[in-house]
């Protein structure tokens, strides 16, 4: 008897239940898995300003979007349906008919950029006050960026630096409506960028890859022409205003 056992060696462990154990673990992970990646509308809030700065903003440079407590839209003083907001935002950004109530787009040419870069370079070199030097340096960088964009796009027209889409809501406005308005404004800008990119580079803006170096410059140029300018301004009670 003993001899026989020894010859057989250690008995093999039954692996039949292995699948069951694995199944159990699998089901646990299946249940706990959340595959959703968070997506949404990204926004940058303006920093808090210490002292009240009375900014001189031309009325034509502001696209005023008000949403009241009943989720109704008032755009530039007129009642508007949400489906028209996208077209409205696009018109504000482009001002195709040179309307005096919409921001004036200014042409940027390569000659102008080069001249300005030369000017600011000499300012930076001659400035003694460090603060002034910083300011000149910033302007210089801005013009260099514009020159880059001109090289890629040809002469283009730019929005005035303080042109802005101002979105204000009442305190009882629903968040759903707020997001829908944000979405429409975003869509308007995205469509403009898509059109420009398609025309100049043969690809839509959304198809450009931020991770590729050659696309990075293109994205930057398109953004310069149609900047993201939705203001998350100081909340103003819409109901009190009117």
């Amino acid at each position, binding site marked *: 008897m003993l001899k026989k056992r020894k010859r057989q060696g250690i008995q093999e462990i039954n692996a039949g239940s292995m699948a069951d154990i694995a199944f159990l673990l699998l089901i646990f992970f299946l249940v706990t898995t959340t595959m959703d990646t968070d997506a949404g509308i990204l*926004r940058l809030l303006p920093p808090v300003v210490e002292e009240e700065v009375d900014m001189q903003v031309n009325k034509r440079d502001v696209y005023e979007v008000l949403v009241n407590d009943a989720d109704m839209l008032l755009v530039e003083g007129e009642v508007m349906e949400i489906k028209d907001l996208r077209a409205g935002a696009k018109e504000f950004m482009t001002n195709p008919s040179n309307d005096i109530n919409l921001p004036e787009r200014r042409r940027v040419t390569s000659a102008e950029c080069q001249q300005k870069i030369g000017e600011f370079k000499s300012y930076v070199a001659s400035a003694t006050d460090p603060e002034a030097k910083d300011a000149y340096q910033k302007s210089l960088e801005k013009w260099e960026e514009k020159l880059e964009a001109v090289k890629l796009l040809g002469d283009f027209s730019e929005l005035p630096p303080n042109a802005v889409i101002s979105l204000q809501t009442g305190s009882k*406005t629903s968040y759903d409506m707020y997001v829908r308005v944000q979405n429409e404004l975003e869509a308007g800008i995205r469509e403009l960028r898509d059109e420009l990119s398609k025309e100049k580079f043969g690809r839509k803006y959304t198809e450009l890859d931020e991770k590729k170096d050659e696309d990075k410059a293109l994205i930057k140029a398109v953004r310069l022409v149609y900047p993201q300018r939705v203001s998350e301004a100081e909340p103003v009670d819409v109901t009190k205003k009117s």
Partner: protein
Amino acid sequence: MSRFKDNSSKGTPAISTASLPDIIFMLLFFFMVTTVMREVDLLVKITLPEASETTKLEDKALVDYIYIGTPQAKALGSEPLMQLNDQFAKLDEIAGWVKAGEERREEVLIPKITRSLKVDKETNMKIVTEVKQELRKSNALKINYSTAQAR
């Protein structure tokens, strides 16, 4: 002759299940790797609003969440409340929460932290605006309005 008879009486042989555990293990590892455990228990009811122009938040490690919605416990009423981490919070607690979030991360990454607002779509803008003001005060400027994909 007898050979053939033998075969037919046996019928089709059973499929070997020996490789079944391997297949299951493969699936198991896939889910283990992709799993992100839910970090918090939601104390508020949230149905996200829909939007089509969304950006994906790439780096989850650099996102902090603020939840706003009506509380799930009926005893707490139907006014929207804010949840930070695992508990309800008042507006003045945001500053501390932002600071704690910054201290957890490398210094260079601090400007890259996004605060994602997961807000129920029925909520009034009042509380959202107040939260945004608090975030501005504590210099947490990069925010995301979390939405569900439309269509």
